[in-house]
Structures are given as structure tokens and as C-alpha cells.
């Protein structure tokens, strides 16, 4: 009898299949289904791409109107040549999917609050936040707006969507992108809504900091009182060098926002003290989300033709946010960086002109405090009467757990983000509705669609006038010799400090009094100084008739550095511009170091502290890879800041906002006896800046000695710049890159943030363009093209971009592969 062994063996076999077919837990993370994952015909091995892979392909797609040729160059950049515009976007969608499908899925999941669905309840805080902020609501409004009013853009996004789905449809399950296998889920069909969700994410990334900062500002003001708050978080910036040169005369504003009479009292009200369970606050978008861009006129260049530069500073991720592409159709020929998830080129150039963007940093998101009639939240108090809410239900699916339902009360301001059901560590028990320009129907990517086709300054001006959110500084240079920059978006006409804090929402007095007409947005064309530039600083000086927003949203020093260099340069070449884009000069330290030295009481320092101060003092002021002086400077500066205002800010149960470095520096330069310097915790002693700075140096020395022991004093080792995989998995990331730069530096590379697409375009007859991003064209961690550009990027090198007509490109020795897209087999 072999029945018993049969049963035993069958059970063991089944149990093993079962075990290898489920996701076991490794530590906190879920492991992939091991059997599936390791199977060489199903799992990750299938994603290990041959290093000499051939990307030739022949694809039949009935959705096409004609045939499309794609030539792929040695960096895996596709050059699309299509006879019809919509065909080009179909193929762009197909290629984005072919090389970046998982990232497209993941990023739109983040934007729409659907991470819990694949990753479990751990991701609920971020999902809930995005749902309640109205991310899905905003995307739906944009989609409805495009569908109703803009057939061309609808056709464009539809063609793009069809392209993505054509790829998904032919995808063998065994060839799913690596991360789907790792995380054990499958891609869904693409939809136009996902494209708009992706754009909502960019709006959040570039304007969503207000969702955190407005709360922090409110709490900080409540803690310190307005007078002290206004000293530490002043809106005055002594050293501002604005985008539009100082002294420019602005026309009379068409809207004169009026500050409510009761603002001083009503706007300083204290927080409620309701009991509540606070969820952790998801990480706000990076404060350094910004960018540099500039254009120099022919009068300053060697060739007599303009040169345009753009480098958006964003989180550094693999797969990269960017994907390089050339799109050539009978209507236009354009090259640049595109967003996987969206049609068209976002930052780039065509055969007539080049454009780039930096973030405007303007405040376009406000909170209004809501008084509900009762806990049903069906009515709220407005203008002396109860006004009805509508309810928006958002269902969050959670892996291995029950659904979570967000029942959001919609007010005329916008969604009620915070109420009794949802509070975070900063919202302090309040009911808060969000008003945000990203939630009013946007025009999608129409601006970029039109910029791709723009021939001249007027086309540019028209294209960008349609842009709503996130507000950007659009820089332009044309072959015909024009340069220009304009700050464009839907900007609120604000009175001073309007929207910096939570506003009363019980009547109309604090409401937005209008959107600034686009022709009143700051702009400049062909200025005498021969260049235009922006680096996220305030766009204008105080003579501009509208309030730009709290100063903390506008970094000062990169702009000063860019303008200082550009002013002094002449006979500029494209190479000079590359050097400037990767410049590591620390203009902040250039002012702050002598200021520090003035206050340090050297004779009171320990010998180690003296050594560190010497290291800082002998430093050449460049944040280069091997410099130790910058590490000493940074740690000393941070420590001095802590000594100066650590006392004022300590003691609050809620973490408060840190004042800007420029506030302390401006005071140090003024050499006054500043009352803030006194440590309010020491009752009988009045500390001055000298005492505090010296104390700061001693404290810093402890940290510096520890770093020295670990051999981490050299800047790049200390900073440890990394390009992180979107799941933050170290093995799929590039860590500890040898790159200089930092905050306040033109080469704005910090720990996980920095120049995400460096581009230099020389507007000669045959356009001479250079560029790269810290990633690779393939999103597949198993491809040699996954991180191809990272080392080059870290070293500050550039690739010459291939921008050629079809005939020339076919013959280029850098062209490696040919993908044919055909309408049918015939």
C-alpha cells in the first residue's frame, strides 16, 4: 500500500506550491511570491535584458492613421517621425509604456490615493491625505473641462491613451515590468484621467507645500504671537535680486485686493482645543523643489545667437520623472524631456525656439476654517446662514484589509480636508476646507502642446497664457534672437499676508478677490542687460502691486548667484553655460562666513573648535566633492541657528516652522544688538550674538569630530546624494554619488534632490543642444539603460542631443534601431 505516502507527498507538494505562491513577510516588507518570482520563464529573470539587446521592432496598430517610423539612438532616445500629429502621440504613449509602464502606474496610484490597494494599510495616511486634498476631484474637473471645451486636446490625450493601452494589450504576463512582479500586482488599462492625475501630482509637488506650511505658519504664529512671528518670519528680504529687475515700473493693477477691517483681530484667532486623534503628517513636497532657468541674448554670446538653459530641481528618482524624446510631424519638430504619463514634450526646443520652466513658488492653496452645524457636516455657517454641503465619497481599497471610506464634505471653498474624522499633527482639531487653484479645471497640457509647435515670441505668449497650475516661470529664446521670461499661472490677487495662515471661512470677507489677469503677471522681454533668468526667488520687488506670498517660499541665493555670473559673462558659448549650470560657488557662505567670523570669540574656543573654524575659513567657497570646509560651515551655521532661535521655538508641543537662514544673516550683517539672540531660558543672563555664535561653534565641533571619526567630513561623503528608486529600495537605487553642490548653489544637488534635467540649447541655424537627466531611458532595473546617465550627470558632463531630420538621422552613426509602426500588415 502506497496510499499513505501518496497522500503525504501530495500534501507536501501542494503546501510547497502554496507557500511559494503567496507573499511572505520579510521584516516589515512583503516578499514577492518566491516561486513565481524565481521561475526563469515567469519571474524576474525575464526582466534581465540582454546587454546587447536589439530594439528593432515592427508593430501593427489599427488605431493609427498612417505609418510611423521611430529611430532609436545609442542612448535609447526615440526619434518619432509621423505623418499625423495624433499618430505621434499614440507612439509616444506606446513608448512610454514600453519603457516606463510601472512608474506610470505607480505615480498615478500615488496621486489618486491608491497605494494601499497594492501595499496595504501602511500607506493609508498618504492615500487619505491625497483623497481629502481633492486630487481625484481636481483630475476629474480637468478631464470634464477638456472633454467639453477642447476637442484637439481630447484627441491628443485619447491618442496617447490608446498608445499606452496598445502596449499593455500585447504584453505577455511573463514580460510584466520587474516591480509588478516584486510587488505582485498587474497594470490596469491607461485612461485620460490617469494623465490628469499625473498632472495633479505635479501641481501638488510644486504648489502643495502650502497644505503643510499654512498649518505650520498658523501654529507658529499662535505659539509666538504675531509680533515675534513677523520678526522671525519676515517677508522682507534685504538681498533680493528679483526675476524682473528692481526698479521696473508696473502698471496700475486691475484688482486692488482689500484687507478686511477685522483682519488683525479675526485673523489672529487662537486654535480650538478639541480632543482628536492625529494621524502622522505625510512628508510635504520638498522645500527645494525649484529650478534654474535663463536665456542669454546674442549680444552676450560668441555666436551672436541666444542660448537657453533650464534645469528643474526635483526629487531624484529611478525610474526618472523624465523621458527624452523627439517628435517630428508635418506641423512641428520638437525635442526634449517628456513626462511618462503625458503627451508632448515638457521642457525642450523645436526648430524655431527653446523653452524651459522653473517653479513660481506663489501661494495658490489656502485653508478656510469651517463651522459645521453638527457632526453630520451637512451644513456650514456662511454669510449669516447655514449653507448645504455636498458629500463626496472616496473609497480606498486596502490590500488584505477592509475598505476605508472618506466621506468628504464639499464646501464652496473646496473639499473639507480636515474634520473630526481626519486630523494630523498640525491641524489642531480644526475643520478646514481647501481652496486650491489646482482644483479648478485646468487646461491639461495644452500649453506644452502649443509650445511644442510655437514659432515665435507671440506663439509662446499665447501658449503660456493658458497655463493655470502649478505657476511657472517660462523662459524663452528664439532663433530670431528674442529672449523672454514670464511668470504664468492662475495667481490669486492677495492683500499682504492673505492666505499665509488659516483664514476664517464664515463669510466672504477673507475670500479670494480675483485671479490676476495674465497680462499683469511679471514678465520681461529682450532686456538691456542681455539676459533673463529665474531661480525661484521672488519675481518682483515690492513695487509690484500684488502680494507674492510668504518670503519663506522664495529662496534668495541661487538667483543672486545666477545673475552675478551672467552679468559678468560675455562671448558666452554653450560650454560656458554647462559650466555655469554645474557651478558649485556658495554665494550664501560668501556672505555668511565673514559674518560668522565677526562674531566668533576665537580665544574662547577649544583647540578642536579652532581647527574646525580654520578648516571653514580656509575653504575656497566652492561646494566641491572633496571640500571639508563646506561641511564645517554647514554644521556650524545650523548649530548657530539652533543656538539663536532654538529657545524661542522649543517648548511647543507641535513642531514649528524654522525661520529662514537669511533672517539671521541679515541681522548679523546689521550688527545690531538683536533681542532674539538672548536665550530666554536663562533668566539672569542676556546673551548676545557673540556668545550665541561661539556657543554654536562649540556644539558644532562635537558633531564635526564625530563625522571626522567616520571619515565623512568631505562634502560628497557627508551629503551622500542618492537617486532613489520610487519604492525607496536601496538595491534599485544609486547611492553615495560623488557630486558637489547643495542648497543655495546653482548646482542645487542635495541628498535626494537636484537638477533633474539639465538642458543647454544654442539657437544656431542647426540647433546645438546638450542635456541629460540622472537616470536612464529604460525604467527596467534589469536593463543596462536603467541608470546610464547617472555617472555622467554626477560628473557634470553633458550629451550632445541628436535633433535631426528623418533622412539625416537615419544615416547618423548614433542611430542604432528602427521601430516601425504600421496601420495594418498590408
Amino acid at each position, binding site marked *: *500500500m*502506497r*496510499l499513505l*505516502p*501518496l497522500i503525504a*507527498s*501530495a500534501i*507536501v*507538494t501542494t503546501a*510547497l*506550491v502554496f507557500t*511559494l*505562491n503567496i507573499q511572505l513577510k*520579510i521584516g516589515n516588507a512583503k*516578499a514577492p511570491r*518566491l*516561486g*513565481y518570482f*524565481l*521561475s*526563469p*520563464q*515567469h*519571474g*524576474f*529573470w*525575464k*526582466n*534581465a*535584458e*540582454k*546587454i*546587447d539587446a536589439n530594439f528593432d521592432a515592427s508593430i501593427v496598430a489599427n488605431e493609427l492613421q498612417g505609418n510611423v517610423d521611430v529611430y532609436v539612438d545609442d542612448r535609447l532616445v526615440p526619434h518619432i517621425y509621423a505623418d499625423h500629429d495624433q499618430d505621434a502621440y499614440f507612439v509616444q504613449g506606446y513608448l512610454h509604456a514600453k519603457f516606463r509602464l510601472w512608474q506610470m502606474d505607480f505615480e498615478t496610484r500615488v496621486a489618486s490615493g491608491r497605494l494601499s490597494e497594492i501595499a496595504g494599510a501602511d500607506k493609508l495616511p498618504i492615500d487619505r491625505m491625497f483623497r481629502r486634498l481633492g486630487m481625484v476631484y481636481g483630475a476629474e474637473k480637468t478631464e470634464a473641462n477638456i472633454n467639453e471645451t477642447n476637442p484637439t486636446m481630447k484627441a491628443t490625450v485619447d491618442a496617447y491613451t490608446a498608445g499606452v493601452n496598445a502596449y499593455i494589450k500585447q504584453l*505577455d*504576463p*511573463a*514580460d510584466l515590468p*520587474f516591480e509588478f512582479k*516584486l510587488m505582485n500586482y498587474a497594470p490596469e488599462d491607461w485612461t485620460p484621467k490617469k494623465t490628469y492625475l499625473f498632472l495633479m501630482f505635479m501641481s501638488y509637488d510644486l504648489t502643495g507645500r502650502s497644505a503643510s506650511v499654512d498649518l505650520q505658519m498658523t501654529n507658529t504664529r499662535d505659539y509666538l504671537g504675531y509680533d515675534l512671528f513677523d520678526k522671525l518670519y519676515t517677508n522682507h528680504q534685504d538681498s533680493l535680486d528679483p526675476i524682473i529687475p528692481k526698479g521696473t515700473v508696473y502698471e496700475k493693477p486691475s484688482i486692488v485686493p482689500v484687507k478686511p477691517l477685522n483682519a488683525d483681530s479675526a485673523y489672529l484667532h487662537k486654535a480650538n482645543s478639541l480632543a482628536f486623534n492625529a494621524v502622522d503628517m505625510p512628508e510635504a513636497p520638498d522645500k527645494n523643489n525649484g529650478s534654474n532657468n535663463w536665456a542669454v541674448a546674442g549680444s552676450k554670446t560668441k555666436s551672436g545667437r541666444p542660448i537657453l538653459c533650464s534645469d528643474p530641481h526635483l526629487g531624484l528618482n529611478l525610474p526618472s520623472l523624465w523621458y527624452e524624446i523627439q517628435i517630428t510631424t508635418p506641423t512641428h519638430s520638437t525635442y526634449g524631456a517628456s513626462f511618462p504619463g503625458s503627451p508632448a514634450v515638457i521642457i525642450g526646443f523645436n526648430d524655431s525656439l527653446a523653452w524651459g520652466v522653473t517653479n513660481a513658488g506663489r501661494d495658490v492653496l489656502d485653508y478656510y476654517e469651517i463651522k459645521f452645524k453638527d457632526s453630520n457636516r451637512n451644513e456650514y455657517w456662511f454669510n449669516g446662514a447655514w449653507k448645504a454641503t455636498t458629500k463626496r465619497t472616496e473609497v480606498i481599497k486596502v490590500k488584505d484589509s477592509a475598505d476605508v471610506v472618506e466621506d468628504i464634505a464639499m464646501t464652496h471653498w473646496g473639499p473639507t480636508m480636515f474634520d473630526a474624522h481626519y486630523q494630523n499633527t498640525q491641524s489642531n482639531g480644526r475643520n478646514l476646507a481647501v481652496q486650491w487653484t489646482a482644483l479648478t479645471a485646468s487646461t491639461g497640457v495644452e500649453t506644452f502642446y502649443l509650445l511644442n509647435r510655437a514659432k515665435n515670441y507671440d506663439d509662446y505668449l499665447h501658449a503660456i497664457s493658458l497655463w493655470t497650475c502649478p505657476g511657472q516661470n517660462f523662459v524663452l529664446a528664439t532663433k530670431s534672437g528674442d529672449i523672454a521670461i514670464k511668470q504664468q499661472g492662475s495667481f490669486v490677487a492677495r492683500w499682504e499676508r492673505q492666505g499665509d495662515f488659516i483664514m476664517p471661512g464664515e463669510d466672504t470677507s477673507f475670500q479670494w478677490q480675483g485671479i490676476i489677469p495674465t497680462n499683469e503677471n511679471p514678465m520681461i522681454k529682450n532686456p538691456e542687460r542681455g539676459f533673463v533668468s529665474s531661480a525661484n526667488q521672488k519675481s518682483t520687488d515690492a513695487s509690484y502691486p500684488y502680494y507674492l506670498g510668504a518670503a519663506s517660499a522664495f529662496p534668495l541665493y541661487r538667483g543672486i548667484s545666477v545673475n552675478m555670473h551672467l552679468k559678468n559673462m560675455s562671448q558666452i558659448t554653450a560650454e560656458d553655460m554647462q559650466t555655469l549650470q554645474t557651478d558649485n560657488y556658495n554665494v550664501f557662505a560668501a556672505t555668511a562666513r565673514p559674518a560668522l567670523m565677526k562674531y566668533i570669540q576665537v580665544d574662547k574656543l577649544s583647540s578642536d573648535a579652532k581647527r574646525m573654524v580654520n578648516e571653514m575659513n580656509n575653504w575656497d567657497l566652492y561646494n566641491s566633492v572633496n571640500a571639508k570646509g563646506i561641511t564645517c560651515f554647514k554644521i556650524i551655521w545650523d548649530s548657530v541657528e539652533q543656538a539663536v532661535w532654538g529657545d524661542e521655538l522649543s517648548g511647543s508641543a507641535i513642531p514649528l516652522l524654522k525661520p529662514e537662514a537669511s533672517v539671521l544673516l541679515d541681522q548679523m550683517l546689521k550688527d545690531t544688538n538683536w533681542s532674539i539672540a538672548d536665550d530666554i531660558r536663562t533668566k539672569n543672563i542676556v546673551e548676545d550674538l557673540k556668545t550665541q555664535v561661539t556657543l554654536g561653534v562649540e556644539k558644532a565641533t562635537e558633531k564635526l569630530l564625530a563625522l571626522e571619526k567616520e571619515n565623512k567630513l568631505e562634502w560628497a561623503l557627508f551629503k551622500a546624494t542618492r537617486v532613489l528608486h520610487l519604492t525607496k*529600495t*536601496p*538595491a*534599485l537605487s544609486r547611492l553615495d554619488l560623488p557630486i558637489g553642490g547643495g542648497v543655495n548653489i546653482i548646482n542645487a544637488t542635495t541628498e535626494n534632490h537636484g537638477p533633474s534635467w539639465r538642458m543647454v540649447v544654442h539657437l544656431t541655424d542647426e540647433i546645438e543642444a546638450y542635456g541629460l537627466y540622472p537616470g536612464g531611458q529604460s525604467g527596467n*532595473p*534589469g*536593463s*543596462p539603460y*536603467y541608470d546610464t546617465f547617472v555617472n555622467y550627470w554626477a560628473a557634470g558632463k553633458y550629451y550632445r542631443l541628436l535633433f535631426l531630420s528623418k533622412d539625416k538621422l537615419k544615416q547618423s552613426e548614433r542611430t542604432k534601431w528602427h521601430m516601425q509602426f504600421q496601420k495594418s500588415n498590408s
Partner: protein
Amino acid sequence: MKFIISILLVALLTYAIGIYGNLPWWSFVITNLLIAVAIPQKPLMAFAAGAIGVGLLWAGLALGIDLANNHILSTKVATILPLKGSYSSLIILTALVGAILGGLASLTGSFVRAHKS
């Protein structure tokens, strides 16, 4: 002879059924079982044939893929899994998983036959 034929058949059918990406990754369990039923062997021999057939196939496939890929992906996966970044450990693990499951499937099949006779 039976033993060799079994191994070859196991490897061949495991490979063939693995081509169909829509079928589950463990489909070879069924083919192994059927082979062991069709070609009766002692349990230990059946296990060995199943294990060697699948194990060698998976090792060979993984090795071939890995060489053509210059270990780019295997090094990363061997860090995630965690195998200290050793691609050879990962190939061995791949082969072991295939071998153990393949062997057990064939063993079960051999008992079916033994039970019938």
C-alpha cells in the same frame, strides 16, 4: 534509461509549458506528475529525475539569462532577497526551488503509479 528519459522529458515539458505566460508558474508540477505516472520508477529515482530535470533546466535558463545580462539584475535581486548581492547564490536558490518542487511532484506521481499497481 528510464531515469535519463524521465529527466529529459521533465526538462522538456517544464520548458514547453513555461512558454505560456498565462499559465501559472507551477504548471510543471502537473507535467512532472504525469511523467512520473507514465514512466514508473522507484520513488527515490522519480524524485531525483524530477528534481534534476527542473533544477538543471532552471539553473541553465537562469545562468544563460544572467550571463547575457552581465549580472545587472541578479546582483540587485540578490541584495533584495537577501543573498548579499551574490548572483551565484541566486542562481543556486532558483535551481533549488525548481528542483525541490519538481522532485516532490514526480515523487507524488510515482506513488500514484505504485498505488495503482
